[in-house]
């Protein structure tokens, strides 16, 4: 997927991705010559179709998580389907604020372990000491974690 600034005859560069949480997606592209920005807006069905392929507009920034699509998209998953506890032993990773813990607790158990791991890796990679709801929001947008 590429965008062309016809006036400048230059390929536009991916700028950022936003997931408002209503199933839609916005991806902004900027012309490196004139600075014009256009946004690609997809409706929930189009967003779902792209997500179904397991690809991310704007590129991937994380290594693939095991069963990432299944865990992120199955609505009738068993609460005890995955035993994530053994995957990551105790360590000196980033801490979680109380608000972030509360928010994480609202994530269905089926996907919670994977979501937690993604946020931890995101914070660790960026030297973030404490995961807060704001960090989760930023990570969600940057990483393209629709619905997480």
């Amino acid at each position, binding site marked *: 997927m590429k965008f*062309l600034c016809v006036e400048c005859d230059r390929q536009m*560069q991916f700028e950022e991705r936003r997931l408002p949480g209503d199933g839609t997606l916005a991806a902004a592209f900027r012309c490196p010559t004139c600075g014009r920005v256009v946004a690609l807006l997809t409706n929930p069905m189009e967003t779902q179709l792209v997500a179904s392929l397991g*690809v991310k507009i*704007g590129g991937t920034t994380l290594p693939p998580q095991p069963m990432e699509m299944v865990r992120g998209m199955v609505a009738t998953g068993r609460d005890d389907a995955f035993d994530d506890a053994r995957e990551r032993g105790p360590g000196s990773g980033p801490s979680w604020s109380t608000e972030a813990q509360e928010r994480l607790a609202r994530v269905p158990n089926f996907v919670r372990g994977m979501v937690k791991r993604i946020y931890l890796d995101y914070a660790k990679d960026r030297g973030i000491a404490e995961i807060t709801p704001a960090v989760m929001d930023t990570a969600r947008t940057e990483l393209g974690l629709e619905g997480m």
Partner: protein
Amino acid sequence: MPLNIRTYHELTDADRSGLVDQIVAQRRRVADRLASVRRVVAVLSGKGGVGKSFVTAGLARARARSGQAAGVLDADFNGPTAPQLLHLPVTSCTLHDGVIEPLVSAEGVRCFSMTFLVEDGRPLAFRGPDTEAFVWRGALEAAALREFLADVAWGALDELFVDLPPGVQRFQELTELLPAPPAVLAVTIPTPESRDAVRRALRGAIDRKATPLGIVENMVGGPFAGSAGDELAAEFGIPVLARVPFHPGDHVWDAIIQGAL
């Protein structure tokens, strides 16, 4: 005056989304995971109710009893039965080094199934928009198949049996995901109706360069009349590997494994 708009391939800067590269990486992950699997066998029929899952489980158990390593990927996401047929309890899946451990039966058959992931008594349902689900549901199921192949620690296997649902769509998805077309085992019951459905599925498999191993005629000696196995074997030039009666004992499956398969 018409606009001068260059086409996709005329734009030489990298596409940062790299969607094609992402797809290629997915395929590579599948190939890497299956590098230690000697043979993938797709069990198909094109027809529902002929006993594909039953045959799959019987053969996998016999393979394990013979001392070889066997796995069953239950690709029937909407009607999974492999765990029950392998006498596997439903327990939590564990993760290890970024992959998911398959569950292992008492006989040593490794298995992964939607049974382990979806709530008892509920259908496989996906999150997403309520309308036009037919547009994306097939893609999601294909992605689930890819993850079952790539994200399960199958390990070194002599044979990975893929228990397919009725129809040919899942087989087509499988062949697109695998680095090479799978071997195919066709299951039929004796009736002409089953023969006709299996013929379509087998033809589709051969069109996709799959290697047909042979026919297993199931539910022989019961109420179903016909000679579907022989007719399909003659038509495709492949053997009838076995005629499986109702309530077969282990010796029936062992004979197939020790024989032609």
